[in-house]
């Protein structure tokens, strides 16, 4: 077991990050599955992280309650801004949600209670591996059930053709709001978990770059199913570490890998239809 202890002491933060990133990728998968290109998830993660950290530091709530509050707070914000913002679609929605993210970042940057640009320090390291594992398991199970449910089919119809969905009697606006808020809830919990293992949070971590990173994870993995975003998040978290030996060339190779994937696998790495086609071709080749 010694090797494991060595491994864990070096890489536990990385493993935690993989878990949190998977949650974030799943949160944006949810909004994408309803046809919404929202870039607000980094901001929702930030709201969750700050609310959770402040509750821990000032009110000393129990960790479970703190996590829940970290999810509920951004979901409530999503419900409020959702009604006007979700009238938009496509790139306009992306721009509006991006602007919302900047508003959140700048607000956090200027508030006293959030510690301004210095952020919050000394957050207790309450997050343990099983917390992340359990929350991931519950989230994946929940989303898998949702996907097969009536709600999931409504999401799919809305993504495919909003007009057709309305004509089928689907309350499109309500389902969009549901996807948006549920996504915010998951992103918020991811933020709360993250804050409680990094010791320190600052507004920098929840800006534009992170919003794009989260989207990239889902797009890279493929978002026609749940495995895609999980795979994408894992790869994008591990790749920079695996390329560590390349030193200065690391970012370059990292970027090149992304470009190649997008060029040759435009629907993401995990695309069941293509994989099935490959398997069939392989079998056919041998027969």
């Amino acid at each position: 077991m010694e090797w494991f202890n060595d491994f864990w002491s070096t890489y536990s933060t990385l493993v935690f990050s993989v878990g949190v990133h998977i949650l974030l990728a799943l949160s944006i998968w949810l909004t994408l599955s309803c046809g919404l290109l929202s870039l607000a998830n980094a901001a929702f993660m930030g709201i969750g992280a700050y609310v959770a950290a402040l509750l821990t530091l000032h009110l000393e709530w129990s960790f479970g309650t703190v996590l829940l509050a970290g999810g509920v707070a951004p979901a409530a914000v999503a419900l409020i801004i959702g009604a006007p913002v979700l009238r938009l679609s496509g790139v306009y929605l992306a721009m509006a949600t991006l602007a919302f993210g900047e508003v959140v970042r700048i607000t956090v940057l200027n508030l006293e209670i959030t510690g301004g640009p210095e952020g919050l320090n000394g957050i207790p390291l309450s997050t343990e591996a099983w917390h992340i594992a359990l929350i991931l398991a519950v989230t994946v199970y929940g989303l898998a059930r949702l996907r097969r449910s009536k709600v999931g089919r409504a999401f799919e119809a809305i993504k495919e053709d909003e007009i057709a969905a309305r004509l089928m009697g689907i309350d499109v606006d309500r389902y969009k709001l549901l996807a948006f808020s549920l996504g915010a809830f998951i992103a918020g919990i991811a933020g709360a978990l993250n804050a409680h293992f990094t010791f320190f949070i600052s507004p920098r971590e929840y800006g534009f770059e992170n919003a794009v990173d989260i989207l990239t994870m889902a797009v890279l993995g493929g978002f026609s199913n749940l495995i895609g975003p999980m795979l994408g998040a894992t790869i994008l978290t591990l790749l920079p570490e695996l390329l560590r030996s390349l030193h200065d060339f690391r970012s370059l190779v990292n970027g090149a890998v992304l470009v190649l994937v997008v060029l040759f696998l435009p629907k993401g790495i995990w695309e069941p239809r293509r994989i099935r086609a490959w398997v069939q071709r392989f079998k056919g080749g041998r027969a």
Partner: protein
Amino acid sequence: MSVLLRVHDLSVSYGHIEAVKGINFHLNSGEITALVGANGAGKSTSLLALSGLLKPARGKIEFDGEDIARLAPHKIVQRGVVQVAEGRAILTTLTVAENLALGAYSRSDKAGIAASLDEVYALFPRLKDRAEQFAGNLSGGEQQMLAIGRALMAKPKLLLLDEPSMGLAPLMVQEIFRTLVEINRAGLTILLVEQNVRQALKIASHGYVIETGKIVLADSGANLLANPKVEEAYLGG
């Protein structure tokens, strides 16, 4: 004959442009009514107002004694007014069966839904043969069948059709229209919006001719077909 739907002084605008200018018409229960006219006359706009996708600027739409003019689209579907979209709007990445199941979205009576599915498959046996195929792989005519079948899955009291003949081969148009007559004989009230004036008026009990947002003629389908003005303007003299 009882009136199922009555449109009163309906106006619909796109921004400052008034596309439908205070039209009045009614649909008799159990009949096929046709709303015909040239491209851009305001036919589709009127239909979109009936199904709630466009909010009317003025006027009333009375269905079953209730004004539905300002209800959300899904509420209108729940009342039993279901539109088959122009351009068919089927979900190409879903299978035929999944498309049909989504048509019954507003219902929860499992036995009733299963019965409706059997009826749709009886009406369009080809859809049954292709139930597990992706809807995107269907031919144009089959997609139109699927769009109609999906609307029937909602168990409508009134079926609205927007250009069901669009982009289809003449034989397929005839097949679709035959099916519409069949559905109507089973008791369903139909409002048919068409540029294919001859075909539409042939199967319609009543017809309305709409020009630049106003209804200019109203008569029985047969009389309109024989009307020299209609013949000159729409049937090529």
